[in-house]
């Protein structure tokens, strides 16, 4: 069936003259802008950015090898050694302090058969003989009242002839062996 145009919308004399030309020109301009924009980005701006990135890469390469390797190594070594020494010296134990403790805190009526110091456990285990239980009790009090002792634990005691054999574990304050 043939198409009819009862309202006459498609008749040439009803279409505004020049309309298609304006649209065409506008689209053409946009088209040209898109094409030139694309060409400008692809062949102008992108190569420019790439060359700048290349120059920056070269600068990074140069600057990382700017100083003599030996000088850098020595400096890092020096810094590392100072830092490591500082941390080691902060924990450097002064075991000789237990001699003063043993000499000053021991009753003259007490003798030791073995002394075992553990720096990690901060504890001294002492095996010895006391003249009597009263002497042992006073010895335990002497340990307890010594500065730097946090706990005294009598592990066992037994009559041994005329003396009393004992074993005591003394726990020291954490800083007792560290402080200067």
């Amino acid at each position, binding site marked *: 069936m043939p198409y009819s145009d009862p309202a006459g919308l498609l008749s040439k004399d009803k279409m505004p003259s020049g309309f298609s030309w304006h649209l065409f020109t506008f689209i053409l301009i946009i088209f040209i802008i898109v094409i030139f924009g694309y060409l400008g980005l692809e062949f102008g701006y992108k190569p420019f950015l790439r060359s700048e990135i290349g120059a*920056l890469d070269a600068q990074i390469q140069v600057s990382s090898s700017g100083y003599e390797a030996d*000088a850098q190594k020595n400096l890092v070594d*020096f810094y590392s050694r100072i830092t*490591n*020494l500082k941390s*080691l010296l902060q924990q450097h*134990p002064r075991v000789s302090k237990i001699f003063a403790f043993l000499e000053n805190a021991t009753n003259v009526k007490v003798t030791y058969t073995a002394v075992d110091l553990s720096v990690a456990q901060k504890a001294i285990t002492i095996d010895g003989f006391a003249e009597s239980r009263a002497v042992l009790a006073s010895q335990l009090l002497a340990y307890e009242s010594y500065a730097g002792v946090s706990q005294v634990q009598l592990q066992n005691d037994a009559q041994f002839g005329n003396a009393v054999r004992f074993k005591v574990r003394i726990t020291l304050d954490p800083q007792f062996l560290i402080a200067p």
Partner: protein
Amino acid sequence: MTTLYLYINLLLPSYNGANGVQELRGERESKKAIVENEAKAEAVIGSLIETYKSKGLSKISDTFSLILPAKPDIPTLLNQLDGISRIDNMTIDSTAFNFLALKASKGTLIKPIGTVQMTLALHGKYQDLRAFVNDLETNIRLIDINSLKIDGGGVPNKDIFNYNLEAYAYYQSD
């Protein structure tokens, strides 16, 4: 339609897409920042190196190497123990050395610390042990005494005791 097609398929990917202008700009800015940071870091390193050279810190560094050497250096350690024991009239009956696992470092520029565990069996007088322990503590190479056991006390007229001493010496591993 063609213009729209070109805009979507050429211009937009060229600007926003992979390897596009925006990506390249981002890369350029991040590299600029690296260059600037490196320049600042270099200035600091340069001044540190100059200070290190000009103030004779390399000599101090040599002294530090004696306290904390770059390797276990057992021969020097053995010599030091022998020297101290001779000075303090102590007799070393036996020594044993054991290498403990490296301690992890606390930073990227800090090298790990290696530990040599030493076990010594000795005998001598109590007063000499005092001096020996004191000399070990103040030895040029850092030595930490970890345990000390004194045996053989409580016997009348006996002044020579047996000792077992465990200590750590350190080195800075490369």
